[in-house]
């Protein structure tokens, strides 16, 4: 260990076997997470900060046999916390005392970012500045005098373009040298200008205490000085481009997407495109998957069961029940999600999504919600569970709850097959053949838009009743458009979103499959439990313009919306003895031809009313168990999960009941 009174000689080698904690801090939209991912690669995991629903990402990298634990702090504008995110960042630096704090700075917006750097400098001087987005600086022909910046700040400054992995080696080396004490920070030049007060450290830590009152005029003066100094430093080190940029792509695109006339049509067009690509693109992979799992793996498993002499009920339960249900969920759910989420993430990466929230904020504000709910709603069209998690982008707990509870009305991927099938079979035939496809698609679109309308209406209702309160403070940064990283996006969105949701769905499909098989094969008084339940639910079903089969299917499909249709088909075959293609009872199957599917519905006396109400009920019923479980975890409250479960269910019953009465009255 070097003697603390001597300055260690700068050597190439660090000590070995040490472990350091490094904090990663920065304004939002600086590419901080790109830096984090580039440094940690796969050696990372995400979770929550204790007691909060803010994502905590932690990872690790190694350098010369030392371990560096990297904590990605939430994006912050200031150390004087105005939001839970900033509180977390501030608390970590103040109390957890990382060995080094790396501040990621957007090199094209130095003045603004330096404000945070100067504030952090007051709390800790063990900083390394990561000047990120060098590729954009080059594109804008910006020149930065890095040595001068480093000299003025008294800490190392490294220029990087994390997206292209430029400058990372130097960054790691600087971090390592600072952590191990090989280099020491120098005093900030002209420090006295910002030391107005006993210190921002004092103000920052006092701001964390409950009931603390920041002296607002002092706060303002202090911030003014930080910004003034940031401006001065920026002026000293930045050389702006020689000639004014001829064409600002971001501005040009924004003129169109926020245009009074063109803004919304462009938005609708873009999202329709996303949905269309998802549906069209998922079709074939879905068939392959179901062919693989149902035609190949399923018989194979049955053969194994026979050869190791499983009792019929065990092979029935495990293979006919659990495996088939899971196979169904996977083949229906995976392909659309594997397309929808990456597309969505690409839009996000590109920078378009804040513009959507910007355009729609007024609508959501009028209902008492937050503009960002438009984004969680869009996410919900992929999967409601993902939409619920996405609600973390909304700071205010009240507005976040509204977003979470209403997310169910976004028609998720799992319900599209149901809607499309019913529309094709029942609505299409109502018009001439050449229009059938268009009208069926139109019917599904109407349902989806109805869902959007319900989202707004229920948000309005909630904010007037059980979730009353003030609109939160709003600020939405609109970063410049950046070319999205296609491969990276596909990969990370696949792991983060698609696989994650799929995993949870499989977990819940297992009990569903078991329940289906059991109720179909356990007989009481020579009738299967399923038949008894169908009979029991029939009166209620008919009242709602549905029937017992549909209700039971929804009951069993609480785990996953994908299995509603196959369960319905299976139950009809079971109950009516209609010719079906499956073997045995309680076996979920799919029919290859639409007309054979229609035959089965007819055997169960389905009418147009049944179809319409089924589409409505599929939109307005309780969330699937994956979503409910996610809601419970995100809100930490069973009460809200129950509200989220029963509110849509009650609404669904009411709507179908009303429609049924009106329909029957007029026919």
């Amino acid at each position: 260990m070097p003697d603390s009174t001597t300055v260690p000689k700068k050597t190439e080698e660090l000590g070995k076997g040490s472990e350091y904690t490094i904090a990663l801090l920065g304004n939002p939209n600086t590419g901080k997470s790109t830096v984090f991912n580039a440094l940690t690669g796969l050696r990372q995991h995400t979770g929550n900060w204790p007691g909060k629903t803010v994502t905590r990402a932690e990872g690790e990298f190694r350098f010369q046999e030392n371990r560096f634990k990297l904590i990605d702090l939430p994006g912050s504008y200031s150390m004087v916390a105005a939001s839970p995110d900033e509180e977390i960042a501030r608390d970590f630096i103040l109390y957890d005392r990382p060995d080094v704090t790396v501040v990621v700075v957007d090199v094209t917006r130095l003045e603004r970012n330096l404000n945070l750097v100067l504030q952090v400098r007051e709390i800790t001087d063990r900083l390394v500045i990561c000047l990120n987005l060098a590729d954009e600086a080059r594109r804008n022909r910006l020149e930065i005098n890095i040595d001068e910046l480093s000299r003025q700040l008294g800490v190392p400054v490294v220029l990087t373009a994390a997206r292209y992995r430029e400058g990372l080696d130097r960054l790691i080396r600087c971090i390592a040298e600072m952590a191990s004490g090989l280099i020491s920070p120098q005093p900030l030049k002209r420090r006295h200008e910002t030391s107005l007060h006993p210190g921002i450290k004092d103000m920052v830590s006092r701001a964390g205490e409950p009931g603390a009152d920041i002296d607002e005029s002092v706060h303002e003066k202090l911030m003014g000085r930080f910004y003034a100094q940031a401006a001065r430093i920026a002026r000293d080190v930045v050389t702006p481009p020689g000639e004014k940029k001829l064409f600002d792509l971001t501005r040009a695109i924004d003129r169109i997407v926020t245009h009074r006339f063109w803004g919304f049509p462009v938005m609708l067009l873009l999202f329709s495109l996303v949905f269309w690509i998802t549906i069209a693109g998922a079709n074939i992979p879905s068939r392959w998957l179901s062919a693989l799992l149902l035609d190949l793996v399923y018989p194979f498993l049955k053969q194994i069961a026979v050869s190791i002499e499983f009792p019929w009920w065990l092979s029935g339960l495990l293979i006919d029940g659990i495996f088939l249900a899971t196979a169904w969920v996977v083949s229906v759910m995976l392909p659309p999600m594997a397309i929808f989420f990456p597309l969505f993430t690409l839009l996000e990466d590109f920078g378009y999504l804040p513009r959507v929230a910007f355009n729609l904020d007024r609508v959501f504000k009028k209902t008492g919600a937050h503009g960002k709910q438009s984004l969680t709603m869009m996410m919900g069209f992929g999967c409601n569970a993902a939409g619920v998690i996405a609600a973390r982008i909304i700071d205010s707990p009240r507005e976040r709850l509204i977003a979470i509870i209403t997310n169910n009305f976004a028609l998720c991927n799992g319900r599209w097959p149901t809607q499309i099938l019913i529309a094709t079979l029942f609505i299409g035939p109502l018009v001439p053949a050449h229009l059938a496809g268009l009208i069926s698609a139109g019917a599904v679109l109407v349902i989806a838009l109805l869902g959007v309308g319900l989202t707004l209406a229920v948000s309005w209702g909630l904010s007037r009743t059980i979730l009353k309160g003030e609109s939160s403070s709003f600020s939405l940064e609109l970063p410049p458009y950046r070319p999205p990283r296609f491969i990276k996006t596909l990969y990370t969105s696949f792991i983060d979103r698609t696989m994650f949701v799929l995993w949870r769905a499989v977990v819940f499909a297992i009990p569903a499959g078991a329940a289906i098989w059991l109720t179909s094969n356990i007989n009481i008084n020579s009738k299967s439990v399923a038949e008894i339940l169908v009979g029991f639910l029939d009166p209620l079903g008919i009242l709602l313009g549905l029937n017992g089969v549909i209700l039971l299917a929804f009951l069993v499909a609480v785990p996953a919306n994908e299995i509603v249709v196959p369960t319905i088909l299976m139950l009809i075959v079971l109950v009516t003895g209609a010719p079906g293609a499956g073997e045995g009872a309680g076996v979920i199957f799919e029919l290859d031809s639409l007309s054979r599917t229609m035959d089965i519905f007819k055997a169960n006396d389905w009418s147009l009313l049944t179809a319409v109400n089924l589409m409505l009920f599929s939109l307005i019923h309780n969330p699937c168990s994956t979503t409910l479980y996610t809601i419970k975890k995100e809100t930490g409250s069973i009460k809200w999960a129950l509200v989220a479960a029963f509110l849509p269910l009650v609404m669904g019953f009411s709507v179908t009941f009303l429609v049924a009465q009106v329909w029957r009255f007029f026919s």
Partner: protein
Amino acid sequence: MNRFNAEGTIDKEESLDNLKIGEKGRVVHLSSKCRGSERQRLIALGVLPGTVIHVEMTSPFGDPVAYRIRDAVIGLRNEQAQLIRVTPL
């Protein structure tokens, strides 16, 4: 409300939401009605006396409006912009 500037002439002062696209204003102060975390957030974003704010664009509904504040483009609702007093430039 009008203010006397250094030359003794009057600077008009109005709230930010009165500016149109393409116009700019220099911040005079934040209204005292703006307090708590709302105020801190605006200050953290750089809305301080002396800062020049450009009006970049509006959403199709006219609310919120995107302002360029110290090299960042930030969307603010009209009710927030009303709390920011500026001198048109």
